[in-house]
């Protein structure tokens, strides 16, 4: 298990957090990344082809 603990050393947690200040908006970099990932997931869900879609259309 010990080697797993050393993985935690990859991310220094003893510093101050990083924040983005943009007018009235204050957001931590971590939260900002999550919001960006949600937007990417949303757009990808709209445009990526859904597996089996064409097959199902043919059988109709």
């Amino acid at each position: 298990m010990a080697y797993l603990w050393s993985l935690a050393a990859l991310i220094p947690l003893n510093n101050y957090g990083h924040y983005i200040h943009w007018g009235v908006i204050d957001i931590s970099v971590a939260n900002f990344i999550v919001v960006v990932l949600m937007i990417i997931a949303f757009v990808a869900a709209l445009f990526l082809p859904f597996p089996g879609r064409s097959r199902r259309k043919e059988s109709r």
Partner: protein
Amino acid sequence: MSTAEIDRQWTTRLRKRATGHLPPEKLLPDTQPAYVSSWIYVFGVTTLAALMMVILSGIILAIRGPQWWHSSAIGHFVNSTHLWSVEIFFFAMIVHLWGKFFMAAWRGGRSLTWVTGVVTFLASVGTAFTGYVSQTNFDSQWISTQAKDGINATGAGSIFNVLNLGQMLMWHIVLLPLAAVLLTAIHVLMVRVKGVVPPFEENGATK
């Protein structure tokens, strides 16, 4: 007993109402309309799957208790499973919400589906918050001492005391999860009762 009497029994009436609104083939359908084959429909089910993982890992945490989840390797693992399932739960729920917003999925008598979604979201935020203050570590002490000022300023602190660990833990593992799970059940049943909302008409009519 006459048939009129049988028809008046509450068991008969309840069964007829339930099967009328939700016959088995509507509850567990074989096929879905063609427009449902899009990734955007996967996020509701992802939210549901993540919620199941949250409940399952939470049950294990409750069985073994704080000493265990703070000090053993497997306890840390289950604790992390609980946290990361919550992260996936909220991530998927928000993308799901955006999808339903842009589809205006409350159309055609589906407002209860939307509203149960909104209330589930609020209950989930409360569950997450009470979870953060129930960790029993420095993080939870920090969060609760920060939060008390905001909540006391609203006056709610007189009945909802974020510094009261016993109260917060009970909200986190009894009241709020119960509400979230019940609301989710109604939400998903409403989707089955009403069927998946059809796309907008091409001429822009909303229906």
